[in-house]
């Protein structure tokens, strides 16, 4: 099967203010030559800490942020080469839901119009068909059609996220980009939305590019997972491989740091793997592996040569010294 999405060497650079008039303009490399593929009907999770470039990578993939280089083949066509008009036609195949269901919905518009808007913009079907569709999708996401005349503030956070999902689905997209779709929601409401997204993926055969900093959420929704660190993918693997046998020390550190119900204070639990410090600044990224400063395995080589993604275990990992972590394995 050919992939729905085939991203190659995608790079995004933001110009920064010049430190002085004659100094060269510094750039912030938010996404540094990442490559990945996404098969139809699958969900690819992108995890990583704040500032690692998850949002920028996804936005550049769907051309909402300008890429500085690379290719994005969507259904075989390089999106980055399309004319604006052709890109506009493609938009109906690609929809987006955001983290914040409060600010992403226009407060002065009735939800009926909010959900119908993408179809109006992309001229999908006749007006009567559009109206029918709104009702159909409202039901599909678990809302009642009698609520269609209400305004966004009359809904709870979870319901507002359902509205964004309904709106995104009305154009029959093939790809849904979800940027932290549940992190603004309470845990009890998160479960409602995660179950809904899982069901829609199966029923409609959707593909997801699913961004989250929560490993538990990603494990629940995604088939494959890419771990980002300072603008690079450091590990990419099917879900089971990534969670059961992570190869990159940063993935291991993330898993070890995520709070887990299996670790109990009463059982004298000690964190198996510790990393110190904060991620480095993306403005002048170090020449070698960006994780080297915090990595328990780092050798001089790591600070000099940037490792590339290569197959190891069941993963692709960008590490000079990949492999399972003993302490983490013993602890689980």
């Amino acid at each position: 099967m050919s992939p729905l999405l085939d991203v190659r060497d995608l790079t995004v650079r933001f110009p920064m203010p010049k430190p002085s008039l004659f100094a060269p303009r510094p750039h912030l490399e938010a996404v540094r030559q990442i490559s990945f593929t996404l098969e139809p009907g699958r969900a690819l999770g992108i995890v990583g800490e704040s500032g690692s470039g998850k949002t920028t990578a996804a936005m550049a993939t769907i051309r909402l942020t300008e890429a500085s280089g690379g290719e994005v083949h969507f259904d075989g066509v390089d999106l980055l080469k399309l004319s604006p008009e052709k890109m506009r036609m493609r938009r109906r195949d690609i929809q987006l839901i955001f983290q914040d269901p409060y600010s992403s919905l226009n407060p002065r518009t009735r939800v009926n119009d909010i959900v119908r808007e993408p179809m109006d913009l992309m001229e999908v079907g006749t007006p009567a068909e559009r109206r029918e569709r709104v009702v159909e999708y409202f039901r599909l996401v678990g809302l009642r059609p009698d609520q269609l005349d209400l305004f966004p503030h009359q809904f709870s956070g979870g319901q507002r996220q359902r509205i964004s999902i309904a709106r995104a689905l009305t154009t029959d997209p093939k790809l849904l980009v979800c940027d932290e779709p549940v992190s603004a929601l309470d845990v009890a409401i998160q479960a409602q939305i995660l179950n809904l997204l899982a069901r829609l993926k199966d029923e409609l055969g959707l593909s997801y590019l699913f961004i989250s900093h929560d490993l538990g959420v990603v494990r629940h929704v995604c088939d494959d997972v890419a771990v980002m660190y300072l603008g690079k993918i450091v590990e990419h693997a099917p879900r089971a491989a990534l969670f059961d046998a992570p190869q990159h020390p940063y993935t291991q550190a993330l898993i070890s740091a995520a709070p887990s119900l299996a670790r109990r204070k009463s059982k004298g639990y000690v964190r198996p793997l510790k990393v110190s410090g904060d991620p480095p600044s993306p403005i002048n990224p170090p020449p070698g592996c960006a994780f080297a400063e915090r990595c328990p395995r780092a050798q001089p080589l790591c600070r000099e040569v940037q490792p590339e993604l290569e197959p190891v275990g069941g993963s692709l990992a960008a590490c000079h010294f990949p492999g399972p972590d003993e302490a983490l394995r013993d602890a689980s």
Partner: protein
Amino acid sequence: MTALLEIEDLRVTFNTRHGQVTALDSVSLHVNEGETLGVVGESGCGKSITALSVMGLIPSPPGRIAGGEIRLDGENLVGASDKRLRRLRGAEAAMIFQEPMTSLNPVFTVGEQIAEAIMLHQKVSHDRAFRDAIELLDRVGIPSPESRARDYPHQLSGGMRQRVMIAMAVSCRPRVLIADEPTTALDVTVQAQIFDLLNEIQRDFGAAIVLITHDMGAISEMADRVAVMYAGRVIEEASADNVLDHPLHPYARGLIDCIPALGREETDLKEIPGVVPPLHLLGEGCAFADRCAHCEPRCLREKPRLVTHGNHPAAHPAACHGVEEGRI
């Protein structure tokens, strides 16, 4: 053994445009020396208001402690003078907030701010206090504390700012440390560092910690005991193991089953249908009734009390008629 901090039947009300609402309704909690109490629950259930009550920081008006007692070492703090409460804050009880930037002063160096906090409660020279501040920064794991002490808050990362807050909070060796979602704004690897630090500090200083969180995973790793709150009431309270392994209240069960936690077999996430009712719409009965699969007429009429039902070894207090009647 009497508890170090005891909250009994605490009631806090707010005047709002919907009239007077009860934000905390007969909340009772306690923490012992050297113990960590986890307080968990959905947004708006009263976790922060409970913490602010202890610190004497309820915004008044519109808020008011309308009843109950808060005892620190037997001394009732409800109705205590402002002077007493000021002396209490920092010296005997300290609080760490979610966003350290809001509680740090942007125009003073962090070393200066910690020194200031020390001098507020101890009769020491400024030089001495500043040296102590550097030592504290070192203690909370800030690299090159000598030079970091001269940095302003905005020059530090979020994780470092939270460490500064912790340094400041423990500067006078408080007996109770309240941490209100201290890591929600931080990355997980940094959150892990802060959790480990809180545990170390507890070992070294013997402080009682109240950790407020909405994350059951954090509860599992950090807490000895847990109080689960819902709509301004404590609805279940027990050792962390009992709550996590044998939750009784349908809401507590729901909270545990609905998280896509690592370290647990993959299953369908159980949903808790509906949403938390707003405070001004709370009725006579159990606040969870309209979301509960086990709701019966009595639940709509009568508020369940937080008591232990039955004599199962893992039996513990839960505010639920269904548990009392043995049907859940």
